[in-house]
């Protein structure tokens, strides 16, 4: 399927974000854990970097101004939607 590569690239983002979600929920109930705070910031940096790299090729990941429009058309609506991707 033509979007196999895209799905592959997304998995890296999904893994990083899953780590961030877990750390986020943990910090909600352990707000002073310095070790986890540092981990969270580390994952945040990596996540932002892989999102920006993904968007160069596949268009905006986020709407409403949180992702740049890097293509010469409105890729946000044109590129495949999450339930249409073939993994």
């Amino acid at each position: 399927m033509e979007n196999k590569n895209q799905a592959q690239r997304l998995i890296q983002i999904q893994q990083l974000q899953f780590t961030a979600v877990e750390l986020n929920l943990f910090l909600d109930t352990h707000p002073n854990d310095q070790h986890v705070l540092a981990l969270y910031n580390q994952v945040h940096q990596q996540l932002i970097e892989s999102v920006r790299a993904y968007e160069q090729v596949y268009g905006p990941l986020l709407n409403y101004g949180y992702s740049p429009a890097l293509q010469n058309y409105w890729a946000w609506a044109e590129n495949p939607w999450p339930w249409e991707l073939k993994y």
Partner: protein
Amino acid sequence: MWIYEKKLQIPVRVSAPNPRLAKYVITQYGGPEGELSASLRYLNMRYSMPTNRAKGVLTDIGTEELAHMEIVATLVYKLIEGASIEAIRAADLGAHYADHDRSLYWVNAAGVPWVAAYVSATGDPIADLHENMAAEQKARAVYENLLHLSDDPLVNDTLRWLREREVVHFQRFGETLMHVQEYLDRKKIF
């Protein structure tokens, strides 16, 4: 305010169209212990919580449940997408097809539409947090039931992952309950 992210929280795969399995799995879309119920239960409860920590937990878990609703929707979509009318009829999904074709709808496994009565909010934070812990356990139990019914190993991967999330949410709600309990006890002293 919510921002949409154009991706699923995890990759979702199915082996083949399987309308019978779709009929079961859809209960985690629109059933009493489903992801819509979970998300709305938590996001609605935030307003009457006494501590910021509790509001944070409910916001973050309520938001993750929306992502889970999208995962379940994708499962159901992929399981009925290419199914033939014969297969849909044989799977007892003819009644769904009559009203909805292959589109999604918030129903339980028996086709009963979602109702707000699935969700509770008493305004008592102790009662409400216990409600959430029970809800997470009930959602976990329903994923177990679905795993017993499912004959698709790829669908099982996703169901197992969703089941584990309920365990983590239960844990976080338990910690939140202790925190709110301490806060209320302290308030009584002063």
